[in-house]
């Protein structure tokens, strides 16, 4: 048996050797070369393209010695306006003490005058006694208090949506909401005059941004049509690319409203979702202060996401997003400012709840506010050299120079003189501040008189002061 196997093996060997002798020469040579090449590749050293430099260690040390970085921060001129900021002593309410001088406050965004409301303060005091100041944790790790849940509930009921979610900082609200839905490869159409928080949210989302001219629906439609043509070229990609339009209810930079009914029509025609940022219009527009959807009488379910901050009308700190549960619930796990940051201090949440109570109980303050805004708008119209930018019912107006001197710096200096003069006469105003290098579309310099509910008599003084300067 084994002999046969041995013979069988021998046979195979013999066959191999025979085949070896019978093979053509080129075949053998080719195989030999290939084997030698494999051996060479196995034993050759691998190298990265980058390190193929011919620098000796000594040269490397020299490079390290020679390299000089820029200074960490460039020097700031001593007379930069932001360094000599206005210090407010005491509460920033109707009468404000700026740099030691008492003025009437036309600078804080305290639209409904709730900053020094006694009921709000006592609600905050009660919450302070019960919960202390901080929450010591993010929402996921024992940072959820019953006041947060109550505030979310109340906001959802007030805005008549299914759900609301609270953030602990107004800026972070929209800046975390946008990247939670819009990722790389998605398309966002955004108005040119969008505020900085929206710009940062868009930058963090890494989506394709398409700017359309401020409030220009024709421009937006043109962009949407172009996108449709693109889609037809590549339908598979189009089926997974999400599209969004981001607009503000009342624009901070220009003081006018967005044409929401036309936007809704465009939404259904081109199948884009709408994100609405209502920081200035929440608590201002609409019969009950529900914002621009109430102002135009639009069904709130038509807007996919409404985001607002509580730092203007509600005189608290923080922000919220509201909408349908399908959309809002996603942010509880993927909103960065929600998951990775401590929650809102309970005293601020209690203050916001009380402010909401006041808003619900006295719906006529919105009428009062609107009347005052119209009055102020009319009163400021006739001032020579300055033009009023903004809608008549917007509480935050911009006063810009009618003829710009051509250079932004000179404009800013002139406006600063006006503001200083007003401050000396007892009116606290502020210039609109921007980060010049960071904004995508820098608005012209202006200053912002802000209208508030209890400012009847002061308007006269404002009028006179600005007239004289």
């Amino acid at each position, binding site marked *: 048996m084994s002999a046969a196997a041995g013979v069988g093996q021998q046979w195979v060997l013999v066959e191999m050797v025979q085949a070896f002798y019978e093979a053509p020469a080129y075949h053998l040579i080719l195989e030999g070369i290939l084997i030698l090449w494999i051996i060479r590749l196995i034993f050759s050293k691998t190298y990265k393209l980058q390190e193929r430099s011919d620098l000796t260690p000594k040269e490397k040390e020299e490079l390290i010695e020679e390299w000089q970085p820029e200074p960490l921060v460039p020097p700031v001129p001593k007379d930069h306006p932001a360094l000599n900021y206005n210090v407010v002593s005491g509460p920033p309410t109707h009468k404000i003490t700026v740099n030691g001088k008492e003025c009437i406050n036309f600078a804080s965004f305290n639209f409904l005058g709730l900053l020094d409301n006694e009921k709000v*303060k006592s609600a905050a005091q009660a919450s302070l006694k019960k919960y202390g100041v*901080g929450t010591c944790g993010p929402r996921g790790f024992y940072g959820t208090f019953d006041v947060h849940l109550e505030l979310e509930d109340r906001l959802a009921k007030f805005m008549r949506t299914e759900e609301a979610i609270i953030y602990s900082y*107004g800026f972070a609200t929209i800046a975390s909401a946008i990247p939670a839905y819009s990722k790389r490869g998605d398309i966002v159409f955004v108005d040119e005059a969008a505020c900085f928080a929206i710009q940062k949210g868009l930058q963090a989302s890494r989506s394709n941004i398409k700017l359309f001219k401020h409030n220009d629906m024709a421009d937006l439609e043109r962009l949407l049509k172009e996108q449709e043509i693109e889609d037809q070229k590549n339908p598979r990609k189009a*089926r997974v690319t999400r599209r969004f339009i981001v607009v503000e209810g009342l624009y901070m930079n220009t003081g006018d409203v967005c044409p929401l009914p036309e936007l809704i029509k465009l939404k259904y025609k081109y199948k884009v979702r709408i994100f609405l940022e209502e920081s200035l219009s929440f608590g201002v527009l609409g019969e009950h202060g529900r914002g621009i959807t109430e102002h135009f009488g639009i069904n709130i379910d038509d807007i996919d996401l409404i985001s607002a901050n509580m730092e203007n009308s509600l005189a608290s700190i923080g922000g919220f997003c509201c909408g349908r549960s399908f959309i809002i619930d*996603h942010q509880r*796990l993927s909103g960065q400012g929600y998951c*990775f940051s401590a929650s809102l201090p309970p005293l601020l949440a209690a203050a916001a709840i009380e402010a909401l109570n006041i808003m619900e109980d006295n719906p006529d303050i919105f009428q009062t506010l609107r009347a005052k805004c119209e009055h102020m708008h009319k009163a400021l119209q006739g001032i020579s050299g300055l033009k009023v930018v903004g809608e008549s019912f917007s509480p935050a107006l911009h006063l810009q120079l009618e003829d710009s001197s051509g250079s932004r710096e000179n404009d800013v200096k002139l406006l600063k003189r006006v503001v200083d003069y007003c401050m000396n006469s007892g009116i606290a105003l502020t210039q609109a501040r921007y980060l010049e290098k960071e904004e995508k579309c820098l608005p012209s310099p202006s200053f912002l008189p802000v209208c508030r509910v209890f400012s009847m008599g002061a308007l006269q003084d404002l009028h006179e002061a600005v007239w004289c300067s």
Partner: protein
Amino acid sequence: MYTHVFSTKKNGVSNGTLYKKTFIEHFEQAPMYVAVLTFVGFGVGTIFGYLRDFMRAWGLEKRNIAEEREQQKDFVPLYQDFENFYTRNLYMRIRDNWNRPICSVPGPQFDLMERVTDDYNWTFRFTGRTIKNVINMGSYNYLGFAETEPTALKTVTKELQKYGTGICSTRQEMGTLDKHVELEKLVAKFLGVDDAMVFGMGFATNSMNIPALVGKGCLILSDELNHTSLVLGARLSGATIRIFKHNNMQSLEKLLRDAIIYGQPRSRRAWRKIIILVEGIYSMEGSIVRLPEIVSLKKKYKAYLYLDEAHSIGAVGATGRGVVEYFGMSPDDVDVLMGTFTKSFGAAGGYIAGKKDLVDFLRTHSHSAVYATSMCPPVAEQIIRAMKCLMGLDGTTQGLQRVRQLGKNTRYFRRRLHEMGFIIYGNDDSPVVPLLLYMPGKIGAFARRMLEKNIGVVVVGFPATPITESRARFCVSAAHTREMLDTVLNALDELGDFLQLKYSRYSKSSHPELYEETRFELED
């Protein structure tokens, strides 16, 4: 064998001569079977997940999640189905361990609102009862300043009455109150630097100031395990980001050398500046940054250092000044000192401190100063009173006592856990104690059983941690008494035996004090 210093898996070899006291960190690896079983656990969960999705798609099971509107069904879907697979099928099963609402101050003990679910965690219902006096091992209350004692909160109450709650303005407009100026001076004095600036939110401090400091053409070297706010700030800045292995100085040095020698990729131009982003204490690992080595590297290669002391300010150091004091170094060595007030001071907000021109630059160019609201006055007052207490300016030694108590509690807690045989990560002095659970099933079981014993713990799994390393994270507080810690430790002991969590191969006996008894009855 107990003091086995930093396993080479995580941190590399260190230069011991720069440290004034021993630096002991532990990152023990679990036995192989644990990793295998963890993967098996996730595998089973995934299979069941597919099964349930299939049943839901075919209508065999109720769909509980919210759905898109009827009018918008033909829009491009908002979420990819696969993205939510993990959320729907794995996270949803143990969702009741997170977002637990509380209804009292988050001190060493708190009251939880009882909630039950009728449909396997899809919706929750509050029964109206509260679970009282649950021991709090989850809140970041290191120095115990989350308190409601009237004497402690006297000044805060006064300021709230005087200033109200809101500001309604940004720093550069009408939002700088005298309170902010007072607070900034105090923070600068506390840290021993020229000047400081405070912001309304800790997360936003990072994400809004890193873009102001670096831009295109700069290089950011960031630790592997940095917090999301640092990563977001680095991404928003537009600079190039390179990651070095967690706390690994060889990896950092190699990156620094390569950066300076080879310059920017492709164009070979020199980098404008190089910034190293590190944290004081890493909240998921409990490890402390190797500051002396990083500072020596930074001086040698002329880079800048940005230190995020969110968890370490107030919690480490002989007087609570953070990792700079812990290592005995001077605050001038660190270019940008950043921290938050949420953890050790029981308030909210963040700060950046350093040399005067740095802070001046931030006052003019920070995104937060121009566009975001400033900190609200009662919160600022809380920080002022907590800092005064820590510095001893209120006339008592309470602050120092708190820091010492925290140190004692930390060392006791960690020592006992090691002795029991659990795998604990991190530095011996860090009040953040991660206890490794590994398997997904144990995450839910651990948290629920601890709640039954009236102890509230925090458990973390994927994606906050690597998939095989789920953990429970304890935050020791100065307000915890010895009895509370003992209660927790006994519960952990029992639960560790029940759930088989004692993976450590270096365990000592669990009752060493019995062996220290030297009473021997001599029988004549």
